[in-house]
C-alpha cells in the first residue's frame, strides 16, 4: 500500500553498477564462488565506510595542535651512531645546526642593555651559551656575580678575574674574593632579527 512508509529496499549508497563503467564476466571454480562473494561483500562494505568518512567534515573548535612543549632547537639529539640515511639526503639548512654544537649543553638567553655593543652584542639579541666550553680569557661569557647575571668579556686582573665591557661608558669590574662569582657559560654565538 502506498501510504505506509517503506523502509525496505530502495537504492543503497554506493551499491550497484556505476553508470558507464565497463563490466566483465569471470569464471571461478564452483567451490570458490561463495568465498569470493563473501570477500566482495566485506570489501564493498569497507569501501562504503571510507566513502562515508569523507562526507561533510564536522566543524570543530581548534585544539592546541601540540600536546607538548617543544625544545627550542629542532636538531635531533644525537645519541650514538649517525644514521646511514643522513649521508644520502641533502637536508634543508637549519640555523640550529649552525649555532649549536652540543644540544644538551647549549642554552639561549636574551640581551638587555648596551655594555657589549662594541663586541657586536646588542639589545634583544639571543645569545647561544655553550656550557661545555672551558672559559678562557678573551671569551665573552655569561657570568653570575653576587646573584646577578651579566654578559662581559672574561679577563685576568691583579687579584683574580675581571669582567670587561665593550662600551667606553662602562667600567671594568674587578672580581673581589669576597664576592660570589661563577661563569654560567661561554657565549659562542648570537641570533638577531632585523624585522
Amino acid at each position: 500500500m502506498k501510504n505506509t512508509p517503506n523502509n525496505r529496499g530502495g537504492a543503497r549508497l554506493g551499491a550497484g553498477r556505476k553508470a558507464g563503467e565497463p563490466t566483465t564476466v569471470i569464471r571461478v571454480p564452483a567451490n570458490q564462488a561463495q568465498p569470493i562473494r563473501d570477500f566482495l561483500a566485506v570489501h564493498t562494505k569497507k569501501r562504503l565506510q571510507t566513502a562515508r568518512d569523507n562526507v561533510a567534515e564536522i566543524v570543530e573548535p581548534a585544539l592546541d595542535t601540540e600536546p607538548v612543549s617543544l625544545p627550542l632547537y629542532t636538531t635531533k639529539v644525537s645519541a650514538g651512531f649517525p644514521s646511514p640515511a643522513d649521508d644520502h639526503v641533502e637536508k634543508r639548512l637549519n640555523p640550529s645546526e649552525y649555532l649549536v654544537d652540543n644540544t644538551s649543553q647549549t642554552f639561549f638567553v636574551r640581551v638587555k642593555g648596551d655594555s657589549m655593543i662594541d663586541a657586536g652584542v646588542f639589545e634583544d639579541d639571543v645569545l647561544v651559551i655553550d656550557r661545555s666550553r672551558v672559559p678562557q680569557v678573551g671569551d665573552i661569557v655569561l657570568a653570575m656575580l653576587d646573584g646577578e647575571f651579566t654578559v662581559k668579556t672574561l679577563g685576568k686582573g691583579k687579584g683574580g678575574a675581571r669582567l670587561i665591557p665593550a662600551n667606553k661608558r662602562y667600567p671594568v669590574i674587578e672580581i673581589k674574593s669576597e664576592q660570589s662569582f661563577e661563569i654560567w657559560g661561554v657565549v659562542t654565538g648570537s641570533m638577531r632579527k632585523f624585522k
Partner: protein
Amino acid sequence: MTPRVIALVDVNNFYVSCERVFNPKLHGRPVVVLSNNDGCVISRSQEAKALGIAMAQPWFQLREIAEQYGVIAHSSNYALYADMSNRVMALLNDFARDQEIYSIDECFLDLTGMRGKQLLAHARRIRHSIRQWTGLPVCVGIGPTKTLAKLANQIAKQDIARGGVCDMNAMSDEERKACFSHMPASSVWGVGRRLAEKLDRLGIRTVNDLRNADAAMLNRRFSVTLEKTVRELNGIPCMEFEDTTAPRQQILTSRSFGHYVTDKHELREAVTQYITRAAEKLRRQASLANTLHLYIRTSPHNPDGKHRCPGITLPLQQATDDTFTLIRAGLYGLDHIYAPGYSYQKAGVVLGNLEPRTMAQGNLFAARDKRRERLMEAIDTINSRMGRATIRSAAEGYTQVWKMRAANKSKSYTTCWDGILVVNA
C-alpha cells in the same frame, strides 16, 4: 662472571635545583616547588628541609613559616624540568655502557669493568661534568646490584664528607656493616613505611637486619620482590636493566618484543598500544599525568655490538588522562629518539608527575578519524561507567580551578622563546 658495577645517579632536590640554575638568587634560601593542582610540596631545598617542611605538605599550611623565614614557593614548571631531565640523561648516557632511566631525576648506569680508584675518579668526573654542563648537582652511588647502588647513593647524600660519591665496592666489610646497622630498613629500595612496620615486628629493623634475614622466609610471608631485595643487599643481582620497575606514583607500561624490531612503524604501533593501556590505568586510578617518558632499547648483548637506549621525557601542556593527547605526545617523542639501523628489543612508556583528577578531562571535540572514533568510544564507555557527571563537571568547573593555580611559575627558560632568561649586557 665479572662482578657487576652499577651506579645510581640522581639530581639533588631536582625541581628546586632546576629553578636555581636560572635564578641564582634562590641559592642558599629555603625554596619549595609546589604541585599544580593541590599546592603540595613536591621538592624542597636543603634550607627548606632544615625548616622542617615535609614532602607533600599542603602549601596553605606553610604560609606562616613562609612569611617568617622567607620561603620562596614556585609552581611546578614541567616543561623546564622535563627538558633539564632530558639533558642530564642524554649526557649521562655517554658515561656508561648501558643506562636505565628510572624516573625524571634518577638513572642507573652500568659501569661494569671499572673498579677502584679509576671507578671513583669516573664517578667524580660524572658529578663534576653534569654540574658544569647543566648547573645541576648530582650524587653517585655505586654497588654490585641496583639495590645496593641506591643505598650507596643515600649514603653519598647523607655524608657530605664523601663528596657526593659513594662506592660500596670500595668499602670494607666492617665499614659496610657499620653503615647498614645505622640505617633503618625503610631506607632500602622497595621497602615502604608499612612494610617496614611489619618487618619491625619480625625483629628486622636495620638494613643490616634485612640483609641477614632469611630470604626464602620473606618470600613466603611477603613477596618474591622482597626476597630479591634481600639477595640484592647481599650482592646477588636479581634485577637486570631489562626488568624495569616503576617507581611509586608513576604508571609504567613496557614489554620486551618477541623479536627484534627495526621498523619505525612497528614501534609506533607498540608505543600506541602501551600508551593506551597506561592511560586506562591512569583513568582507573583517577589521576592525570603531567609528563610522559618514552624509551626504546636494543639488547646490550647484541652480537653486532650496536647498543642504544634513548629515552625522552615530554612535558604535557596541561595535566591530562586523554589517550589521544598522550599518544600524540608519545609518537612525537618516538620521532625524536628513533634511529634506523638498530634492532630494538624493548619499549616502555611511563606516565609521571601524577596529580589527582578533581575534574574530568573529557575530550569533547575530536576530529573524525577511525582510530580516534574507537578511542572516543573507549573513553565514553569508561565515562559512562564512572557516571555521566564526570563529563559534565569538566565543562563546568575546569577553567576556573586551573587558572587559580600556577601562581608563581617560572618562565619556560628552555622551551619557549618568550620565556628565555633575560640578562644584562
